[in-house]
């Protein structure tokens, strides 16, 4: 008897978010040229190959750019962030060589000038929302 094959999840935002809910930061890897992509791509932007597979990233990266936001969108305000309690958003360069936008936690927001580009970061998953709106957001911890 052959083993049942596990259907491959499509290379979509929904599948990426489903993985986040399982605390996995997944990359789409091109089997032809080896390029790894977060967010996932169904077609390799480097070689146009459609032969792609999911691989789990190491979850390690470093800070490439950041900002301390004092006035955020509604879903951040609902999490208690405002002028008096700002938060950090940033771009993280993953060990795999691809970048992604994420919340950055564990930094001292009162001293933004002392936050260092290049700081090592580790993936984290922030759950927010009630009932059907409950969602896992990608974050990185300093």
């Amino acid at each position, binding site marked *: 008897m052959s083993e049942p094959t596990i259907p491959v999840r499509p290379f979509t935002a929904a599948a990426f978010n489903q993985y986040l809910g399982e605390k996995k930061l997944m990359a789409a890897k091109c089997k032809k040229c080896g390029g790894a992509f977060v967010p996932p791509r169904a077609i390799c932007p480097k070689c146009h190959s459609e032969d792609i597979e999911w691989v789990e990233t190491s979850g390690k990266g470093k800070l490439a750019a950041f900002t*301390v936001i*004092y006035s955020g969108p509604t879903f951040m305000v609902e999490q208690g962030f405002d002028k008096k309690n*700002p938060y950090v*958003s*940033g771009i993280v360069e993953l060990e795999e060589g691809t970048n992604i936008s994420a919340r950055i936690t564990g930094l001292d927001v009162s001293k933004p000038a002392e*936050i260092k580009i290049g700081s090592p970061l580790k993936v984290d998953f922030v759950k927010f929302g009630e009932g059907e709106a409950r969602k896992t957001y990608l974050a990185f911890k300093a």
Partner: protein
Amino acid sequence: MPKSKSLPRGVVVVGAGMSKFGAFAEKNSRDLFVEAFKEMTKSVDKGLDPSIIETLYIGNFTSDQFERQAHIAPILTDAVGLLPRPALRVEDACASGGVALRQGVMAIASGMVDVALVGGAEKMTALKTAEVTEALATAADVSYEIPAGFTFPGFYAAMATAYMHRYGMKPEHLMNVAIKNHDNAALNPYAQFGVTIQKWMEGRIEAAIKKGKPAPTWSTIWDFLHDEAGNPTVAWPLRLFDCSPVSDGAAAILLVAAERAHEFTDHPIHIIGSGQASDSALHDRPELTAIPAAKIAAQTAYEMAGVTAKDIRIAEVHDCFTIAEIIASEDLGFFAPGEGFKAAEDGVTARNGAKPINTSGGLKAKGHPVGASGVAQAVEVFKQMRGQAGERQVAGDVPVALTHNVGATGSTCVVHVYERRN
């Protein structure tokens, strides 16, 4: 990238006008577009019979969100009495106006039409600030960028941190751009903020005294710009005066085939280069201290025009945030990477400098009704090149000029090069 081709037929601007930019509770985008259209009509030297206009391209980012009115192109066409001409709403976020201009250029260059109206309109102030922020955020990647908590000031702030880290710029350097653009806007009667930062500060002090409140102790604009009470942080390192405002406004220009220019004016402005490029979300780019699509669009436009960055006498660039103007001045090849902030500090980009940028006041101080901005840039260049910019007219000839219009963080960039021949 395929090589840029030259225009198969010459295209010229023969009329240009804009509404006043600002916050107008009593006006919607069609009212503003009518104002811009009338200003454009007035500017045509030999007069304009509007019935010869064959088609319309109108930049508008999101009237659906801002005014709950989609399908705005035929409505604006009707408002200026041009039914039943074909009209297209062009949407590429904040680059909508510049891309509409490119559509008009292509239509005329192709030979399909001789006379095209290019417009742009946006009515943003009917929504609350938080709603405007969220509407603008839809120009970013809603699946992968917005869940990180990013706002538009946040994206450009992040570029600023990468730039500061790489080139040693300080947040204070950004203030030079805001000061310059307010100085220029103070001489532009169509600007939303037609005041210098000095006057703005004095107004704040006066208002406090009038209300019997303790007067702020700012003695220079630098005190004011460094004070959270005068210039609050929005997204570090960007403060309020690093950001363009929420605006209502419209602009319109008349494009015609070069061979028919003489019917309208003896001083047409030729569009000799047009370039446009697309890019990914900000995080997916190989560099964060430049906008790659702007470099490609500029290169394409320069190549088509047969000019280089050195030939550009003045430029209107997309300064949605102060850092954006500095990066633009490098992407366009005016200054080497990492030198743009020094050029701003040294006054090179001032109205009387070697490379005047944003003589209109820019998006920063003239205002940024997003879909209109790219077209309003062409209006300023048209006036400056013809010596009609009034008090803010640059000294000497302006034989070659450029406009640079960016959508979102640079996912769309469009550049045009203009030439005056007589």
